[in-house]
């Protein structure tokens, strides 16, 4: 194995069901239902998925949802803005913990 991630492995995802078919069926049914048109459009859901893919840093998901976003009619500007949302939340999540730092520092400082 040259690398842990191979693009050709992505289509093998469905084979994960061979280990635990009933659980896989529940998961994939749920997955399909989540991405169906609802109060949010499929295009909006795909943009959310792209942003989350970057937050969890999954190369398979980034590949799949980049293509899916384009095929749902999104453009590079929208996709880049979506990634900035993920980035802002990731960065913000670190920064907001500065409150904890300030609490601790405040308690033990003169």
């Amino acid at each position, binding site marked *: 194995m040259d690398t842990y991630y191979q693009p050709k492995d992505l289509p093998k995802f469905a084979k994960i069901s061979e280990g635990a078919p009933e659980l896989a069926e529940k998961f994939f049914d749920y997955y399909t239902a989540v991405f169906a048109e609802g109060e949010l*459009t*499929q*295009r909006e859901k795909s943009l959310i998925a792209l942003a989350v893919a970057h937050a969890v840093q999954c190369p398979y998901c980034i590949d799949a949802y980049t*293509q899916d976003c*384009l*095929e*749902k*009619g999104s*453009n*590079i*500007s*929208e996709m880049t803005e979506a990634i900035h949302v993920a980035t802002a939340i990731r960065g913000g999540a670190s920064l907001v913990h500065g409150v904890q730092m300030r609490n601790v520092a405040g308690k033990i400082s003169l």
Partner: protein
Amino acid sequence: MSNLQTAENLNSNLFQIPALETFRENLDNNGLDLSRTHCTTLQVNVGMLCNQTCKHCHLDAGPSRKEIMSEKTMNDVLDLAARFDFQTIDITGGAPEMNPHIQTLISKLAPLCKTLILRSNLTAIAEKEQEPLLRLISDKKVTIVASLPSFNEAQSETQRGKNSFATSITTLKKLNSLGYGLPDTGLELNLVSNPTGAFLPSSQEQTEKRFRQMLARKWGLSFNNLYTFANVPLGRFLTWLESTGNLESYVLKLAANFNSCSLHGLMCRSLISVSWDGYLFDCDFNQALNLYMGGRKKHISDLYVLPGPHDSIAVSEHCYTCTAGSGFT
């Protein structure tokens, strides 16, 4: 072996992809029939000359191309249109506006069919000398089918070239001011959105809804319908796919999305396509391969009977484009 089989064999395994079943094998192995119905549409390609060099063009049209339809061939087209009863006549190119005889052709074809369509890239018609053409098409109530891949300038221009977007928006405003795309004017303006790369088009219904909202919000523009079509892996687009290493994955994606239900509505079933020099094809895409109607080179001046129900259609692997997803009608 028939002329059609010989012609299809010449184009067989077009993309040299071992994992790809030929389109004819796919039809045969699945017991599917792709044959003609009544012929209702005449499509006329008036030349390869174009002011743009779009990256997705299946005909490699552009400013350096010299092949344009002559007055003599146009007269043959007019004779053909008068001999038969076509509901729709569809003028395409290149940029049809750049053929110097286009106004004569439009004037004479308009009374010969119910719907006359002019395919426009929205920039060739923007030149000042095209004002009389704009007046003519609105007078004759010619339907405009215009290319606009995206309402995002950068994305649109990756396909159609620099400075094409602002001109296209200006032309759409001009067409709206003439009544095109507005209710109750009888002047129809339809948009075509092709993907800006090696991926499938978005849902036609959703894309139309979004274009309608965004074009109205950003520029106050209106249109009638929007069509989404996949890019055909021929001509300049094929060259791009090969040079970027996208060919195999793109063609396999088209084939993986083969939808047998799309066969029923394919345009090649009810259309004849005429090349700039007057020869007959089953569709404009087959022109890029010299894949002639019935597998035999035949000029329109020799056509006395239209192809009819159950007649064969010449196919090759590029046909996977029109059958991917909801299809190309």
